């Protein structure tokens, strides 16, 4: 059994980090919004390629409007990042490129998946209109509410870790 992997979700307030984790770990979703303060940790064991069991320890950090102000000690030893933004709130992706650049510079060689969440609130046409903003960076369009692509997101990230 390989050692557990530390996954950290980052992104602005209210983009759905906690919801994505709950969807993935407990397969639930709630509409009420409880702000995460500090850190919340959850865990899930998954099976990837060839049935290899892998433990993911998932760190849910409080949202921040500025990624550079993040408590870096929480990010030490991270094996994989999930960067989340909210497709329905432009303010959460207007600095997408710069924030991802910051991650890449400070945590080189750490696999990172970029996701636009709340896909259920926008339509395909919206994504196409904003092709230029999203396509270069986004790995998955997901919805914690509907559960779409959430499993794929975590599994693909996990695969990138071994």
């Amino acid at each position, binding site marked *: 059994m390989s050692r557990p992997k*530390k996954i950290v979700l980052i992104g602005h307030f209210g983009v759905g980090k906690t919801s994505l984790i709950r969807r993935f770990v407990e397969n639930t979703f709630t509409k009420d919004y409880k702000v995460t303060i500090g850190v919340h940790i959850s865990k899930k064991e998954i099976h990837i390629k060839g049935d290899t069991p892998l433990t993911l*320890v998932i760190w849910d950090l409080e949202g921040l409007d500025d990624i550079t102000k993040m408590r870096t*000690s*929480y990010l*030490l*030893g991270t094996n994989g990042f999930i960067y989340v933004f909210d497709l329905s709130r432009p303010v959460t992706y207007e600095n997408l490129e710069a924030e991802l650049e910051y991650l890449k510079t400070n945590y080189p060689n750490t696999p990172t998946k970029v996701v636009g969440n709340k896909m259920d609130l926008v339509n395909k046409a919206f994504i196409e209109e904003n092709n230029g903003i999203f396509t270069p960076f986004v790995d998955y369009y997901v919805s914690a509410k509907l559960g779409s692509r959430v499993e794929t997101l975590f599994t693909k990230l996990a695969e990138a870790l071994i």
Partner: protein
Amino acid sequence: MTQDEKLKLIKDILLTDDRVFVSHIEQKIAKLEETINQKKALSVKVDPIINDKLDDFIKDIPATLGPTITETLKKEIKNSQDAVVEALFPIIGKMIKRYIQHEMKLLSERINHQLNNTFSFSWFFRKAKSKATGLSESDLILQEQSNTKIEQLIIIEKGSGVVLAEYSKTKMADEDMVAGMLTAIKSFVEDAFIKEDQNLQYIEYDLYHIHLQNFSSYYIAVVVSGAYNIIYKDKLENSILSFSTKHKIADVLNNKTALTLKLKDFFKNE
């Protein structure tokens, strides 16, 4: 003797005495006046001289007496170090203590705030133990905590919070999650104390004492139930220290199986 004669005699006696007495006092007053005046006259002349001398004296102290005083002090301190320490200790101790108390208060406020909001340890441990022992959660809360017992041991990688090895007599809580939470709390607290080389060494939570012992790339968390006091802490600290050195833990950090075996071996009698 007639009445008049008698009266005169008495008057004479009394008046004579009066007069002698008055003149006596007058003399004394005169002498006093004289003394005072003389002193006044003298002091006008002498005072400036004395003042000058005093000034000189004070000016010269460092040169004349200074070395002697320093030497004496040095000797005194050297010869009675214990006494000096004894004397200074309460003062310095109080200062440090007050500072620490203040910091700890701030810290515990912050941590409590954080714990209430985020790290649900009590719930966590109690639920797990309740499940494991079949006792109700409230019974567990009330349960006497008389005998000290190691409940769980986790070797945790610093920073990532990844579990390197774990050993527990009765499964307390999921070690991966506990390790993550502990590491998050540790990071938070250690960030709060900006100074380097400050390590969080202890967390008290509900019925549990979580002893944290730091090594360079990992730390060991010991979940203890029952009374945890300075004597126990000392004992625990020493046994973990000798565990880590005797078993050359640093060499097997990446081998979970080997590490777990060593942990189990060492602590099964604790």
